[in-house]
């Protein structure tokens, strides 16, 4: 028996601190963007084009991370871009999770014809190249926030469905599920009270991973100019613009890229950290 182990709280690991910290900063930045952004992200000033970041010669005070070829402030654009990135991450990530996990749970627990139909759909879905599929969808739906979210849900629910189905199947084979049934639980009740709590750590880990993926997909879509209107700041849009002038003004490309990289990394690390922490067996 434990007690010595169970009583004490484990310290939050480095991984959770760093990833959680970065995401908190990002959320705050997105919420307070109008207050803390030094400049208007849309304001162009062709006389101040391609200003370097603050530590290099020729920088202007107030343009902390420099400006792009149209003289727009890079830092302000990153801050405003965080808004779209996080909205997409949270909404698209959660919707994908709800759709995929529900289908996966039903397929894995009930099996039979429900499983056959869902699994066939997953197989067919996985045969499409996801990015092309997304681009095609946006082309049909028209650009805009809703279309991006729909596209991400449509291309990515299979990830959840597959993993959660497998997990639900292995949990269903456990004796405690049989015990619950013998004790008079309904099938649906068994699924909700016995299976769901045990696949939850996996769902959480997948959800945060999915949020990171949603950010990437949004960046890819804005890279090919299929995100929301072209002049509003997005990380993908900035990267695509910075690409054309990378030799003259590398900072236009590099800063949004670093932000994107750290954000996606933080999401996946947060998921792993939370899984370790909340899985009762691993804890």
């Amino acid at each position, binding site marked *: 028996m434990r007690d010595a182990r*169970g009583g004490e709280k484990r310290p939050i690991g480095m991984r959770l601190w760093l990833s959680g910290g970065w995401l908190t900063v990002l959320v705050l930045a997105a919420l307070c963007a109008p207050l803390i952004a030094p400049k208007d992200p849309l304001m162009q000033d062709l006389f101040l084009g391609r200003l370097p970041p603050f530590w290099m010669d020729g920088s202007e005070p107030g343009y902390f991370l420099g400006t792009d070829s149209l003289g727009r402030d890079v830092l302000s654009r990153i801050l405003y871009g965080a808004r779209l990135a996080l909205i997409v991450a949270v909404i698209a990530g959660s919707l994908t999770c709800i759709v995929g996990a529900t289908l996966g749970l039903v397929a894995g627990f009930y099996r*039979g014809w429900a499983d056959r139909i869902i699994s066939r759909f997953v197989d067919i879905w996985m045969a499409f190249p996801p990015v092309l599929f997304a681009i095609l969808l946006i082309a049909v739906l028209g650009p805009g926030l809703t279309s991006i979210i729909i596209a991400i849900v449509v291309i990515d629910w299979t990830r959840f469905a597959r993993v959660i189905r497998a997990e639900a199947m292995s949990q269903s084979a456990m*004796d405690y599920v049989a015990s619950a*049934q013998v004790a008079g639980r309904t099938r649906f009740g068994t699924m909700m009270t016995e299976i769901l709590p045990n696949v939850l750590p996996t769902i959480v880990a997948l959800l945060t991973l999915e949020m990171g993926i949603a950010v990437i997909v949004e960046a890819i879509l804005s890279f090919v100019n299929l995100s929301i209107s072209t002049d509003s700041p997005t990380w993908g849009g900035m990267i695509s613009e910075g690409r054309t002038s990378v030799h003259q003004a590398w900072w236009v490309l590099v800063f949004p890229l670093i932000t994107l990289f750290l954000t996606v990394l933080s999401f996946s690390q947060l998921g792993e950290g939370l899984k370790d922490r909340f899985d009762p067996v691993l804890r």
Partner: protein
Amino acid sequence: MSGYLSIRNLTVCLKSGAPILRSVSLTVSAGQVHGLVGESGAGKSMIGKAVLGTLPRALHVTSGEIWLDGVNLLSLSQTERRKQIGATAALIPQDPLTALNPSKRIGPQITRRLVDILGWSKTKAQQRALELLDEVHIPNATRVMRSYPHELSGGMRQRILIASAFAAEPKLIIADEPTTALDVTVQKQILRLIAEMQQRHDTALLFVTHDLGVVSKVCDTLSVLYAGKVVEDAQMNRFFMRPIHPYSAALLAATPTYTDPTGSLTPVPEHVIEYVEKEVAEHDVRAAR
């Protein structure tokens, strides 16, 4: 029907039609312990699963009757059947390591039965759960109630499963090789505990095992199973003195003895296997007609 649990000509088949249980009949009287022995794959556990309605998806009952407390379970709808089983029967599972929900504390897992089946209040169920844990000799019951399954040892978990099986005072308990997954030293304690609980609560017990030594200690009557067919039904005393079927006799002879620990083990002889195989084949021919 005589007996609390009475199985009549139960046949269970794979989807392909291959039989897993071949017209099994057996009776467990109220307050009696009935052993179910046989080698691996003989279908011992499947009988228990068929009664409790937890057969694997690939199997289904093709014919027969299962009478539990005067009701034929197979004539009931799924919902009614689940209710009937929940109210009258319980299971002590084989593997205590997977039989408790790992994401829930012990307390709710015991009390939920009482709340679900008997409709008790939470506090009353809590009180009863503490008593039950005390009955199965778990010290410091309050703390155990707050623990997660992975914090307890296998023997401890099996005690908890026994407690929760007896919780709602079922009339029948199916123990599916309850000691197989445990250490030999713990096995004896758990066996003694099951016997003790069975006597105190006066429950009918269907005891599935492959260990004849265990059967001799616990059971009143037994059925010997081979390839899903009952080859012998017997009273305990008579069985160990004079087994009737040659397979039963061979099985008894194969039991290792303490008196000669270095002696080689006796396998079931070839001609006996041939004999039962022939019986099984004859049964299949009769059944097909």
